[in-house]
């Protein structure tokens, strides 16, 4: 593509060239991106319309618009209970994950550099093994015997820990690497702090933003997890996704309202997770080494500018994690 010749600058640009320029800007590429955007948005838009329609027979247009389905959903005790259960499991899983992962990631970046490469190998497991395969083993292992936790939320919490492990580890590792944690610890200990004290007073406050981002994003896809919830626990502890699957027979408008509610919830969490400005370039985390090499090579480095910088650096760090179908 050749560059368009610059028009000599004049006050009050003539109408025609500016129109032409605008048309030229709406090129094939913009068209492609917009169409894919529309394609991806289509199911969501359809569901939103359906959730807002009073009645929709076999016609092209709804009879009227209403918010009654949403109100009905939000006042249904069973929905609220399921929502509460989902929150409970997610909070439990995230608390457990932080408790278990933070010490490991910290030690891997201060004392045992070899541990980091071991961990980078280990965290590929949750990626590589489909949940359905894990749940076959989990069902057999914990159905009876000393740890009979199948059918209770207690099996979901550690299982969800394995789901969020890969990208939580990556997110925290990135924060620590950006911080140069080894020198920080050294400085703190020179000033007389014990390693524990140094960790809690110096390192933790510095990686708080990283932890926050990881937590929000982990939350957003734990809310969408269905396979483990349905296979290991099912209706005995009905989480949101299981509830949605169980009310299949209910009014389509009602279920649409639930789908939209779930999506908006995810949206808010994703937004909260990405609200903070990206502080450093984060290499994409990816289950594939070959990919990561090419990815980390050419990541766009945000330029310091007055406007908020593009956030995609942070997105990639977190979001190759969600597998399409959980």
């Amino acid at each position, binding site marked *: 593509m050749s560059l368009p010749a610059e028009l000599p600058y004049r006050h009050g640009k003539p109408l025609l060239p500016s129109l032409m320029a605008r048309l030229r800007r709406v090129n094939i590429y913009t068209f492609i991106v917009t169409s894919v955007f529309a394609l991806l948005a289509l199911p969501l838009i*359809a569901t939103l319309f*359906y959730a807002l329609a009073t009645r929709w027979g076999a016609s092209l247009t709804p009879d009227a618009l209403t918010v009654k389905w949403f109100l009905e959903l939000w006042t249904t005790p069973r929905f609220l209970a399921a929502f509460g259960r989902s929150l409970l499991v997610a909070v439990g899983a995230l608390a457990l994950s932080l408790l278990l992962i933070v010490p490991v990631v910290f030690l891997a970046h201060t004392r045992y550099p070899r541990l980091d490469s071991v961990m980078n190998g280990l965290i590929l497991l949750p990626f590589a093994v489909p949940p359905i395969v894990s749940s076959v*083993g989990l069902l057999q292992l914990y159905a009876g015997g000393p740890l009979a936790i199948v059918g209770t939320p207690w099996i979901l919490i550690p299982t969800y820990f394995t789901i969020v492990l890969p990208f939580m580890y990556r997110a925290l590792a990135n924060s620590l690497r950006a911080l140069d944690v080894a020198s920080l610890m050294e400085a703190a200990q020179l000033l007389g702090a014990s390693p524990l004290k140094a960790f809690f007073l110096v390192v933790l406050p510095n990686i708080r933003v990283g932890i926050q981002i990881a937590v929000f994003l982990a939350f957003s896809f734990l809310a969408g997890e269905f396979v483990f919830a349905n296979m290991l626990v099912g209706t005995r502890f009905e989480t949101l996704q299981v509830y949605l699957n169980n009310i299949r027979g209910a009014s389509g408008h009602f279920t649409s309202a639930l789908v939209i509610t779930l999506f908006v919830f995810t949206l808010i969490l994703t937004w909260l997770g990405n609200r903070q400005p990206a502080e450093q370039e984060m290499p*994409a985390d990816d289950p594939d080494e070959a990919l990561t090499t090419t990815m980390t090579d050419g990541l766009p480095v945000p330029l310091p500018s007055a406007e908020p910088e593009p956030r995609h650096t942070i997105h990639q760090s977190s979001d190759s994690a969600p597998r399409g179908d959980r």
Partner: protein
Amino acid sequence: MSAAFKRRLTSPVMWLLPFALIFGAFQIAPLVWVMVSAFKTPTGWGLANFHEIASSAFFRQAIWRSLEISFMSSVLGLAIAAVTCHSMHRCGPRLTRMMIAFTNMTSNFAGVPLAFAFIILMGANGMLTLMLEHFGLLEDFNLYSRTGLIVIYTWFQIPLGILLLYPAFSTLKTEWREAASLLGANRLAYWQHIGLPVLWPSLAGTLTVLFANAMGAYATVYALVNTSYNLMTIRIANLVSGDLFLQPELASALALVLVVILVIVTLIQQWLMRRSYHVTSR
């Protein structure tokens, strides 16, 4: 507190133990259990479960259909994602940023809600179905068929593909294209000699990830067709939690077949990568 106890408390290994325990019990142990019990037979040990899978037309069909739908949807998803990523680098930063944010959100929108959204959009009385039939553009589209599943799978592959490929497309420098066209290369030649060789590792890697993602997908299909469509994941789930009599050993064997397929695909990809001409970009 005694000094020895204090030292033990700050001993780093103690901080790694809880992680190792939970990870071992909930990630590694189930996998090991699957590997071991797959070879368990009523009379002892052996390949009876695998023999049963291989000799049953029903299981063979499940494996074949899983492979087919996964392959089709990954290739389609990858193609659309690649074209989109290329276009994103050629249009305004605002649109690109919006697109990235949106793909992030939709990449989490999978499973049961997605299946419902598709029923509303393309089910028997779906909006799009009705609209297309109204204009006579559609004979009979069945969401609950092979084509329908490929459509839905492709839909959830696109965001993932875009997120994985987008950085790779940033490595293509504008100067290369300019240099190529100065040397008289047309678009086709540019892609053949520069673009694709540079992107090839990322494309192959992304294809593998998408394929694995589709092979392991369960929630979407289950919510859509329950157990009426014959796929590997549906069969596995049915053997351990179905309404019929349960056969956990057979489920393990089928799960192991699934894992082995994923491993083989990954190995093939790695092998191709090693053979391929690798470009390092600075």
